């Protein structure tokens, strides 16, 4: 099970890196979305996989009976999912606004902040 997930994580990472090397913002955004999922799966896998022993406390007990699966990786991923999801939403809006204002989604053509024909500093003094 861990092997399969590890391979999946590897595939996710390669796809996201490939997409993020693009110069088009929409592909970069897709790459970031996949990267977020790749990272979540990484945490999940490195937290060890156990199916048979859910950390559930019986009704009449105060502690789980015997050792259980570790619920912490899932808590971590939950946090990470919420964060990466909200950042993705922000980035989508940002890219859309930038596309509206700058008229392109090509990162190489976006030179408003760093103009290519910027003046050189004066050489006096």
């Amino acid at each position, binding site marked *: 099970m861990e092997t399969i997930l590890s391979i999946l994580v590897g595939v996710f990472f390669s796809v996201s890196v490939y997409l993020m090397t693009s110069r088009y913002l929409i592909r970069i955004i897709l790459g970031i979305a996949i*990267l977020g999922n790749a990272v979540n799966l*990484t*945490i999940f896998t*490195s937290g060890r*996989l156990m199916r048979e022993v859910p950390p559930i406390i019986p009704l009449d007990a105060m502690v*789980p009976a015997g050792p259980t699966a570790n619920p912490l990786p899932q808590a971590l991923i939950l*946090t990470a999912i919420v964060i990466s999801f909200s*950042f993705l939403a922000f980035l989508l809006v940002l890219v859309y606004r930038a596309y509206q204002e700058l008229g392109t989604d090509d990162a190489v053509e976006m030179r408003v902040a760093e103009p290519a024909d910027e003046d050189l*500093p004066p050489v006096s*003094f």
Partner: protein
Amino acid sequence: MAGNLDHAVDYSAGMLMEATHIADWLIIAPIILTIVGGALLLMLREKTKLHGALATLIMGLLVLVDALLLARVLDVGPIAMTMGRWLPPFGITFTVDAFGALMALISGVVALAVCIYSLVEISVTGRRFGFYPLLMLLMTGVTGSFLTGDIFNLYVWFEVMLISSFGLLILGGERIQLDGALKYAILNLLATTLFLIATGLLYGAVGSLNMADISLKLPAVQEAGAPIITIGALYFLAFAMKAAAFPLNFWLPASYHTPNIVVSALFGGILTKVGVYALIRTMILLLPDTRIILSEVIAWVAVFTMIFGALGTLAHNDIRRVFGYLVISGIGPMLVGVALGSEEAISGAIMYAVHSIIALTGLYLAFGILMRKNGGKYNLSDVGGGYKASDGLSILFLVLAFGIVGLPPFSGFWPKFILVDASIHAGHGWLAFAILFSGFLTTISVGRVWAHAFWRGGPIGTTDGQLGMPLQGLTRSVRSKTYLPVGALVVIVCLIGVFPSPLLSIVQSGTQSLLNPERYVSAVFSAATAQQKAKQAEKAQQPKDHEDTVKGHDTKTEPMKQEGAH
């Protein structure tokens, strides 16, 4: 899958019964203050007139609380507070040593200065868009990063900081801001994702997220063959990107000149230093072996950061971009401290970070005053006549500029001196040379800025001695709100330069807790050890022959009985 039971955990051993000492509530006071302040300002979004005064008040309180926290830490050593009722390896712990408390205090001071300055700089539109709530939440993220003792929690605070900084960066919604913010957002998000990958792998290897616990468990795990070096390299990559170290710095000059000057001042002062803080924390406290292996790489990164940053300051016409490269160039010396790793070098790096936060923010703000006076011009070719218009401002600016490049008797001199000394002692004369050479290049660069903006009579094309356009005078209330924060920062810069020893002793205490983490670790586990002692005392009262049979059972159920009683 029976073998997997080895990885099972028994959480019931981790119940925390001891309440945190009331004085130690100071640890989370700064975060509660800023997060409640941010929420309050959001609720008052209809009454934006109140925002400025309220935010300044809260920032003032934040400085006060941070100062009390630092005093407490210096008094009793590192202190810790665990959230909920889980013992440290399980619960989220806030742990503060002198290093974290000092950084929190300094960024609080800088944020207060920025907040006062913003009273005149942020327009009604900026307030409506939520400048002050975002500022509060940014400070929540920054302070949280400095005070937390849990590596996943550090990631969460980084994200809080990041999303607030996105908001501040695009506050005006101008084309240039959207362009800058895109590059800033994507690359910074990538850096924090790298950080999260490293944290996930570290959790997989060590099984703990608490920094003190990790530093205890790591040697054994490393011996067992866990890929700690890989994880350490990932951490270095992520935090170097956050700190804008050389090959990963290009988001910074693309974005830091686009927002309002107060936002630039805050970012230039604080944000990259949070990356440096995290780098020092992980490399020195958590992964000392990795640091030794990577030290050569870190040293080269430091040298390239210093030299390329300094060359960047010389190559640009836009003064705000010159300052952006000054920020980058200033990251180098701190990395030298990490690369050397000796006690002296780390002290130098921490002191450099403190100095750099204050002086860079001051420099941006002082330039902001000049921009107000000359109607928003920021190109070296278009400015001039500053000295004639305001000799006071030109002196403040010069002090900050000399402070940045490390000329005595200002704040930059001592950390650079310590770092040069440490490099020579460690037998790396080339690092000392790089520090001095980049200082020389940046001296030329800030000297040129000063000469063009203040010394000469007017911009290019005007007869020297005659103003191209008259500089505007500022009204009394604008003057007080802009000169007060800049003046205060200049005073701090001079004080550190003339009396470095109080700061140095705080910094050394911070270095001690990084290099010899026993007290840091014992602060985290003090609640646990107190509980264990209580248990042992209880056991001692029981008949002796029972002890062995009860032992395994005891730890598991006893806290539960207590909880049931609550």
